[in-house]
């Protein structure tokens, strides 16, 4: 964005971080997890990442740049979107899937609504879910695509501390959590959302997830649920996108809690591995409503 119109409420003080700096920081925090995924899963994962990032950048260049004469490629948002799309996909998908997902994310979910800041759904989530529902079989995790560079084979569960093979960016929950922690300490991500997300996800999992297996109340398997990579990716990187989340502490807590509760329902009763992504996309729609909950009071009282 070149010179954004000043349309924020007072105070008009500016702390410094530009859109580009924020986007690049988030991308840098996500990069270790993506790199680890590529190392473990091999060249196929690298191809998926390259396809997603390339399609995202090209889409932004073609529509915002060539058609609208707004050269927004430099704000880093297209790069981050491509990276997030790539990270949220399994490495075993055919190459056209990350390309279509990233192109849909940028062209339909973001630019059709007026560009960065006007999109009501996280673009990367929109693209990811478009391919999930369009090609349910092709976009599903299909295991190890080929030998990785590290010669280790991750377990077939969705994420664990260092090796799992759901989404390629979610192979290592540890690296995702480290990146997310950096975002939280720099206050780029609001802590309320992941905190409420985790609490509202863990509590019902612990209390009720044992029921479908006939084990009774408070027997849910907490550890695999909380260390799942797609949960960490959604809670730390997707649910904290400043554009598509509410402002104000109460609204953020409610937003995170909604994400957590829906993730629980979709994961335990819907059996969907991408449940956290779906939950966040669903809660994105409620942001305008939630913002009425806790509108931040202006400085100096009301």
């Amino acid at each position, binding site marked *: 964005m070149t010179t954004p119109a000043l349309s924020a409420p007072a105070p008009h003080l500016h702390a410094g971080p530009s859109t580009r700096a924020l986007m690049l920081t988030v991308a840098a925090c996500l990069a270790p997890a993506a790199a680890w995924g590529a190392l473990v899963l091999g060249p196929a994962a690298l191809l998926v990442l390259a396809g997603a990032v390339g399609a995202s950048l090209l889409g932004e260049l073609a529509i915002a740049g060539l058609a609208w004469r707004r050269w927004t490629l430099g704000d880093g948002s297209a790069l981050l979107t491509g990276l997030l799309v790539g990270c949220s996909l399994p490495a075993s998908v055919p190459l056209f899937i990350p390309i279509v997902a990233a192109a849909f994310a940028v062209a*339909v979910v973001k630019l*059709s609504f007026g560009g960065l800041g006007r999109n009501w759904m996280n673009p990367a989530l929109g693209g990811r879910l*478009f391919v999930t*529902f*369009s*090609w349910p079989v*092709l976009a599903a995790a299909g295991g190890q695509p080929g030998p990785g560079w590290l010669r280790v084979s991750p377990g077939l569960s969705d994420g664990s501390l260092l090796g799992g093979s759901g989404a390629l960016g979610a192979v290592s929950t540890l690296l995702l959590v480290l990146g997310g922690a950096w975002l939280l300490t720099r206050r780029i991500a609001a802590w309320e959302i992941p905190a409420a997300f985790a609490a509202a996800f863990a509590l019902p999992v612990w209390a009720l997830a044992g029921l479908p297996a006939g084990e009774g109340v408070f027997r849910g398997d907490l550890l695999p649920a909380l260390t799942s990579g797609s949960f960490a990716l959604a809670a730390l990187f997707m649910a904290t996108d400043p554009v598509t989340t509410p402002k104000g502490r109460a609204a953020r807590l409610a937003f995170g809690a909604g994400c957590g509760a829906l993730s629980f329902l979709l994961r335990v009763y819907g059996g969907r591995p991408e449940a956290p992504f779906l939950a966040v996309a669903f809660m994105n729609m409620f942001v305008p409503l939630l913002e009425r909950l806790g509108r931040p009071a202006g400085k100096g009282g009301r």
Partner: protein
Amino acid sequence: MSEDFPRVLWRDNPLLISLAGLCPALAVSYRLSNALLLGAAMLFALLGTGIACGLAERVLPPKFRLSVRLLVASALVAVCARFLSAYAPALAAGLGLYLPLLAVNCLLLYPTGGRPLGEAILEAMGRGAAFAAVLALTALVREVLGAGTVTLFPIGSFPGVWRIPGLTPARVLVAAPGALLVLGYLSALARRQGRGRS
């Protein structure tokens, strides 16, 4: 009237601008044959309503206009629905509830006010044709991209379904979100076109 057709097609398109008749359009436009059939039924009902009501309104007091239109439109749509379920049950089943529902949309699309008979009929036909055209276009896009087929009516040795080779269709487009996506983009295009000309 001929220069008015582009206006009805783009700037006053019932589906794209006034968003009238969305319900059947969204529900039925997953297959081209359905859309063509529904468009034809709409045209037939509008034409019949136009002629019958145009003649009747010459002798009826204005306060009966709406009730007469309602009666005529629903009778014609019922005839249409019965005819189709008798002679083409498979096609009628594809349209389901949305065929009888056309009566409401027929009323919505029928031009208001006391116009001369010929003009009212032409206007009604134009709107019906615009509705049918947008419906067919939406269905074509959705079916080709979402199912990889083009479904027409089986005639002779032609089975009615033409499968496009080498395509991995995106299933979202034949599901409900696809209808909203395609119609949304068409609507945006029509609004843009209308803004440029007015």
